């Protein structure tokens, strides 16, 4: 893999590990615990890393009083770092999951269109044309307003917004690929649609597919953040980057570090993952 790809992998892996530890392991997952006496603590670096309880004037043997809040606490006294990591898990999980799923759906439909051609091709491509013409973000907001927000609905809506957007690019790439002599030779060996596409065309288009996943991922992170920002994101106790960005802006006057730490974590993750996916794409380039 390229050096940039390795750096990207290291960037995503270090923060990813921290994210998993903090947001999944019991003992660390104390974001749900509201301790109102500990509300709005500043980052630990500004008060010599004192225990949260000590700062709030609580007795040290009360639960959660004996911890250091590296990024301080929020309005309800919850540890902000735990919240940020949980939000990263949700936002990245959503975006990566939807990105991979979208590209898989797009690849399958593009394969059918390229393999059968004729009316199948026409049907798939005209469907995509119609979907392109629909003002997508507006219709998602409409759907969420009618059926209510919530993580499952957000997932469905974001998938609905993105599954078709790469079909045309993939369709053309697959058509070029299956017109190559090696695919003709495969046909002469009796290979069918599934074998040709999954074992031969998909690996050979690896660089295109990884690049598309990376591009979709970035778009999805923005879309999810936007939906959460305007109040249509996952609902509590779920968190997401969009929700934290909104809260960060609202508390900018007394706790600016929340917004900037959210920015920093987003930038770190997205840069890391983009570099890593770019490395995967470069590695998948076929020597011909």
């Amino acid at each position: 893999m390229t050096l940039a790809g390795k750096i990207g992998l290291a960037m995503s892996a270090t923060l990813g590990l921290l994210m998993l530890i903090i947001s999944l392991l019991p003992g660390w997952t104390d974001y749900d615990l509201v301790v109102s006496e500990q509300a709005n603590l500043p980052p630990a670096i500004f008060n010599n890393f004192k225990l949260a309880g000590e700062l709030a004037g609580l007795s040290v043997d009360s639960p959660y009083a004996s911890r250091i809040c590296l990024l301080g606490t929020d309005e309800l006294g919850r540890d902000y770092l735990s919240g940020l990591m949980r939000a990263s898990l949700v936002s990245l999980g959503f975006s990566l999951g939807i990105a991979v799923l979208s590209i898989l759906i797009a690849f399958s439909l593009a394969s059918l269109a390229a393999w059968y051609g004729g009316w199948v091709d026409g049907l798939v491509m005209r469907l995509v044309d119609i979907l392109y013409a629909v003002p997508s973000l507006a219709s998602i907001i409409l759907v969420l307003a009618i059926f209510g927000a919530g993580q499952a609905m957000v997932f469905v809506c974001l998938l609905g917004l993105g599954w078709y957007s790469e079909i045309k690019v993939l369709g053309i790439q697959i058509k070029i690929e299956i017109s190559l002599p090696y695919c003709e030779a495969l046909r002469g060996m009796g290979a069918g649609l599934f074998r040709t596409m999954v074992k031969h065309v998909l690996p050979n288009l690896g660089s295109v597919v990884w690049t598309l996943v990376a591009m979709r991922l970035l778009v999805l992170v923005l879309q999810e953040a936007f939906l959460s920002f305007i109040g249509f994101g996952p609902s509590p106790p779920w968190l997401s980057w969009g929700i934290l960005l909104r809260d960060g802006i609202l508390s900018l006057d007394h706790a600016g570090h929340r917004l900037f730490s959210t920015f920093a974590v987003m930038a770190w993750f997205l840069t890391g993952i983009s570099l890593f996916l770019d490395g995967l794409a470069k590695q998948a380039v076929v020597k011909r």
Partner: protein
Amino acid sequence: MKKNEFEVGKVSLYRANTPVLSVRGLSLIIDTPAKKTPRTIIDSLNLDLPAGSITGIYGQTGAGKTLLGLAIMALLPADLAGLVKGSVIFEGNDLRQMAGKAMTNLYANKLAIMFQNPQASLNPNINIASQLSQAGRMHHHLDAKQAKERAVNLLQLVGFLDPKSSVNAYPHHLSLSMSQRLILAIAISCSPQVLIADDPFSSLDDEGRAHCMGLLSALAREFNTAVLILSHNKDLLASWAQKSYTLSAGKLEEGLSS
């Protein structure tokens, strides 16, 4: 050549010199929008491919040899396939009427074709062992170990000097002549009953060509395979084919006239 080097557990049903595949009244007329007159590629052509012998078809460049090969195998792209008339009888069935699983089960297994551009016919991203054992795994459900053993044997058979390490190589590691030999190995990997070779071994030197043609005639003899060679090399056909035809203006004439 030992018989079991090819064998996957199949015995030829044909006796030598009985026709395995018969082409009857095959025509292919292509509309050419620019010239407005349809171009006749193949003109009601009849041909029998006898078991256990090599049949040669000579034709100049552009005579339609490749299209003829694809038309016989029913492998023309959909837009051209619709323009074909006539029938190709194999095992009592018309290949042109067959479809789906029945058809794909024949390819590589009973009907094999060697395409003319050896390097482009290989998937650049897949190692040689997998490409070579693909047909066997598809049609005979060989497990990975058997498949690899067979791949090594086949490579040795077609003249690879170090087959054990070559199976792990990729097509871009191979020279043109090695890929030509690999294409031959793939084509004979399931010991087919009919093998159509489109302009084979053109990039091999005389010695290599003689070796590969020797393999083809051994295949024909041992397994009663009907081999059809489409070539513009008269010498090759004169020295190896039992019967030769010349394709010109869509018609077949016996002998190697020009």
